[in-house]
């Protein structure tokens, strides 16, 4: 009986390792190939990528794309937070009956393909260009819609983890106005959720191609696409760098999610002295 169990455990372990190996090869092989391809010149491509002034001089379109993408990521994060955080808090505290509706609206962009979104956005962007010019930073508006599902989920999860209503009422009874309730009571308690939403936004914006390309704006992905026609090595190196940046951001996100609040290591609840 024990031998049978040991054999089964061995088989299961072997199966797990086999699955891990196949998946590992499937995901890592293209990345390894990218590294190999971009280092054939002895690392010159990576040295150029790390030298910003020289890169800007050699590939001005690429550097413009990188700058545009960073600006779009920053502005989109800001606009998303300004729009979504107060709305989500207000709905929780004062308009709980609207919660399902707001959730539906925020999740809607997930169901619309980017290409369809562009068809709808194109006439709107004619007006945006008319009023604000054709800067690539105007993509911020489209990207804010695009990131809503992910950002809303992150912020809503943060709000679900605390009793927002009771905290708000406690603060109100102590003399806090609504702005103080949001800024000094709710926001500090959903800080990691807000950071998650911001990281997801940055990762999403840095990887976006379709909308920028179809609306004739530039960003890093559009630049990589153009670059691929003239310098395959550099375009692959930049793609890999963007991928690594997104990976680091997601790693930071999961680290933040797993981290306990300050001071939790002082004493767990079960050992706290009960003197009540």
């Amino acid at each position: 009986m024990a031998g049978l169990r040991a054999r089964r455990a061995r088989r299961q372990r072997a199966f797990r390792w086999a699955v891990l190996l196949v998946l590992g090869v499937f995901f890592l092989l293209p990345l390894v190939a990218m590294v190999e391809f971009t280092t054939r010149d002895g690392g010159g491509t990576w040295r150029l990528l790390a030298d910003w002034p020289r890169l800007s001089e050699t590939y001005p379109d690429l550097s413009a794309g990188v700058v545009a993408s960073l600006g779009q990521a920053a502005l989109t994060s800001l606009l998303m937070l300004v729009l979504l955080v107060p709305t989500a808090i207000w709905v929780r505290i004062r308009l709980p009956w609207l919660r399902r509706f707001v959730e539906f609206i925020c999740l809607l962009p997930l169901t619309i393909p980017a290409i369809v979104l562009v068809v709808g956005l194109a006439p709107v962007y004619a007006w945006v260009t008319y009023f604000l010019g054709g800067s690539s930073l105007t993509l911020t508006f489209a990207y804010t819609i695009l990131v809503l599902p992910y950002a809303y989920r992150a912020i809503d999860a943060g709000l679900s983890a605390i009793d927002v209503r009771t905290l708000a009422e406690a603060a109100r009874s102590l003399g806090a106005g609504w702005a103080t309730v949001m800024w000094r009571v709710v926001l500090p308690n959903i800080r990691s959720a807000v950071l998650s939403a911001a990281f997801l936004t940055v990762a999403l914006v840095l990887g976006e191609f379709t909308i920028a390309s179809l609306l004739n704006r530039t960003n890093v992905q559009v630049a990589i696409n153009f670059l691929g026609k003239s310098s395959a090595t550099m375009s692959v190196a930049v793609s890999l760098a963007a991928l690594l940046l997104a990976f680091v951001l997601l790693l930071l996100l999961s680290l933040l999610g797993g981290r306990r609040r300050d001071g939790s290591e002082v004493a767990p609840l079960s050992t706290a002295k009960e003197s009540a």
Partner: protein
Amino acid sequence: MNESGVAVRLKDLHKTFGSTHALDGLDLTLEPGELIALLGPSGCGKTTALRVLAGLEDADAGQVLVDGKDVTALPANRRDMGMVFQAYSLFPHLTALANVEFGLRLRGRPRPVGRAAEMLELVGLAEFAGRYPHQLSGGQQQRVALARALAIRPQVLLLDEPLSALDAKVRVQLRDEIKRIQTEVGTTTLFVTHDQEEALAMADRVGVMRAGRIEQLASPADVYQKPATAFVADFVGLSNRLPGRLEGDGVTVLGTRLPLVSPAGAGPDVTALVRPESVDVRPDSDGPGRVLAASFLGPTSRVTVEVGDQLVVAQVTGGRLAELPVGAPVRVEIRPVPVALDTGA
């Protein structure tokens, strides 16, 4: 009673949620420094009354007067009331000390740290000042919440079932402590609970609520011993519902004539509400009753006796359980204390 408190008046308050009348013309006056407990079953409107006084709900009609001033239209943050909630409400990102300081800093009070430390001292948690809420037990959190509410020297203190999430032993300790602190600081206090023992132990007066109105507002002793209505008698403490016959200004139950807490309107056959502690049970081989069940409750015991087709519950001292085994013949006597009649209202 401390004279530093203010008078509070809830005047003809109405509040509906959909088709439910949570408050139906509620009138209540709190004297300065007084602690009134609102007691009642779930959905009777007691928490709504407290939330309307706090400014967290708007009344459909009626007035809230604090120290003679109409505060009905004032938002919660400008009402100058401290509140302790049923759910743990400490701000998780702040230490105990910072939680207590919160209201003081908002009000721009001088020496907020010193005052906050004093308040933590008052609730016996000075050494826990640097701890975060998740490092405190439930009882400690509620004491910090009490310190936070009192730190701002509110005109009125509101307690919304602050002990209901705690275990039994901590609840008893904390309720005594809240009463001590309330007496010490003299803040007019409205306390909402569904726990009758808590209400009777802590309050100067108890208001028993039913369907958005106060059924009886009286001292704990009067609410218990002289319930104004059958609902109060039934809700506060245990009551036997025994058939009786009205005779003049009293009622005869199981052969004993009992005075009435209020004049009877109907008759002559009525149902009297008799407390178990007013019933005595003695072993008697010729007695008409028979012990059906007996439970040991520590200092007291509860004995259920069958007399004819009637069940009577009696409360006796714990030690007497041995002389009243199940099946033993007994005699039942009722002490002539005032009783209420069940009018079916």
